[in-house]
């Protein structure tokens, strides 16, 4: 069964179970990307490209801070975003005799974006060849010997992750280093990240860690910290790769309230059925005898 909407029963939230793997399959694996400790070094981009032999797709600086990848794509599976922001100065009161610095401070937001490996994955739902499939780890992977490059997954993804590779014809995206996972290794990006901004592990454990980290940030007065895609009730059923952000998602090029398009498929077919019936009725009406 290829539907990936998680059912509401107890066992059903796990995408691998829902996709028909035996109960003894590995626990769900994913990423917790804590952007509050990202230093923008791009080791993740380099490690990913090196391990997966991803082709070079331009190394120009784009004029938006230190971003040189722009967005995820067929040839960019980890994309580090940089956002330069004016902020209110949050420094404690200066020492007596020191001039106070009112108002304008500055900060960078840095974040390593990646395929979300959604619980309810639109790319997987729409793939007409079965090339996109759910692995035993709960991740979403493209089988390159099956994909015929129809490109339907490209506009289906609510995050703009997957794309068609130029000169190749097929679509490519992050595999969560499926080959490394199979032998018990960590994905290349998580292995390379020097600050453990990218944490790899069991999704359940990562969610606990993320909740804990969020609580500590809030206690320290970082009120704008929030988790993104950690909630199973959200529009994609939560994601295997979720984030801790320090501003609204759209600031990082992420959709604020993504919803898997499959949720509205029933309504679309209903509208099509009505239009189809109208077409038959309309054409039949033209045959009514004139006066």
């Amino acid at each position, binding site marked *: 069964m*290829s539907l990936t909407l998680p059912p509401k029963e107890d066992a059903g939230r796990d995408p691998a179970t829902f996709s028909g793997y035996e109960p003894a399959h590995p626990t769900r694996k994913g990423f917790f990307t804590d952007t509050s400790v990202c230093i923008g070094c791009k080791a993740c981009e380099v490690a990913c490209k090196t391990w997966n032999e991803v082709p070079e797709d331009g190394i120009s600086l784009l004029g*938006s801070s230190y*971003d040189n990848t722009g*967005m995820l*794509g067929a040839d960019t599976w980890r994309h580090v975003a940089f956002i330069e922001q004016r902020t209110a100065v949050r420094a404690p009161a200066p020492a007596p005799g020191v001039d106070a610095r009112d108002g304008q401070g500055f900060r960078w937001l840095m974040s390593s974006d990646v395929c979300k490996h959604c619980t309810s994955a*639109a790319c997987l*739902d*729409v793939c*007409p*060849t*079965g*090339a996109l499939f759910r692995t035993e780890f709960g991740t979403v992977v493209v089988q390159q010997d*099956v*994909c*015929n*490059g*129809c*490109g*339907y997954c*490209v*506009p*289906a993804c*609510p*995050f*703009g*992750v*997957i*794309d*068609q590779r130029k000169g190749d*014809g*097929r*679509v490519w995206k992050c595999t969560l280093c499926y080959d490394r996972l199979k032998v018990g290794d960590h994905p290349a990006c998580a292995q390379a990240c020097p600050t453990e901004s990218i944490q790899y592990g069991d999704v359940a454990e990562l969610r606990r860690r993320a909740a804990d980290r969020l609580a500590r940030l809030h206690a320290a007065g970082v009120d704008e910290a929030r988790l993104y895609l950690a909630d199973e009730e959200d529009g994609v059923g939560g994601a295997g790769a979720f984030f801790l952000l320090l501003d*609204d998602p*759209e*600031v*990082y*090029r992420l*959709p*604020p*309230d993504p919803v898997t*398009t499959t949720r*509205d*498929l029933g*309504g*679309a077919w209903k*509208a*099509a*059925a*009505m*239009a*189809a*019936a*109208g*077409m038959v009725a*309309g*054409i039949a*009406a*033209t*045959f009514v005898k*004139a006066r």
Partner: protein
Amino acid sequence: MVPDVTPVDVKTYYERPVLKEPTWRWYIPAYFFAGGLAAGSSLLAAGLDVRGDQRAARHARLVALPAITAGSAMLVADLGRPERFHHMLRVAKPSSPMSTGTWILAAYAPAAGVAAATDLLGRFRGARSASTWAAAALAPLVATYTAVLVADTSIPAWHDARCTLPTVFASSASAAAGGAALMLGAATGAGAPLPARRLAIGAALAESAAATAMERRLGPAVRPAYEAGPPKAWGTAAKALGVGGAAIVAAGRRRRWADALGGLLIVAGSLCERFCVVEAGKASARDPRATVAPQRARLPA
């Protein structure tokens, strides 16, 4: 309900798009047109068959087959790996309108083929009849599943129009079929039958009305996809050609030149509407506000 949002207030990442544009080339809107033309023609053929107008029914059958053949060829040509087109037949996934459509086409195209072939051969009346009706039964799905296909994406201009696009596609398909019947009737000198004439005029007007309604019902952050650039040009052309063609046919009082010209304009209008919708989808994907504004509006402040 679509919330009323002011796009200006939305934050973006340096104005970069959130979504990816579809990589589909001109083959895809051209297929939407060709598939619709075939579907409308198959329905027309069945009705004319019942009415006993075999000459006109033949015309309709002989439009449907080349249209669906060319359309299918274009679908294969657009693939990144065309030689793997048969991989579509590996699965039957109800969650994928493209998978559903593959199987609809796999049933419809042979039916249209048998209907045309038996008609040309002048034999196998039973097979001609059965295949004509099989094609007609599948035709409404062929005409509308493509609207479901584009609506089942994250592209705001498509997804938000999921309730109205099927009507646009169905009326466009019907108009193209009527227009083609008028053109063939004029070319052969025999004239088109009254149902085809009514269909061409009525469906062309319905198509323009449906397209206008579809665009108007989009929220203010999403509608701009249709209001500038290539989508606006294609959309204006589609409406002008459709309405203009219908007017020429109606006013022409069955004169050959009026049927031929009006029919041609109506067919061209249907093609333009398909390009309008696809180009609007690409523009919608490129606009981060179209994605962010409606989503931000439905979240608690």
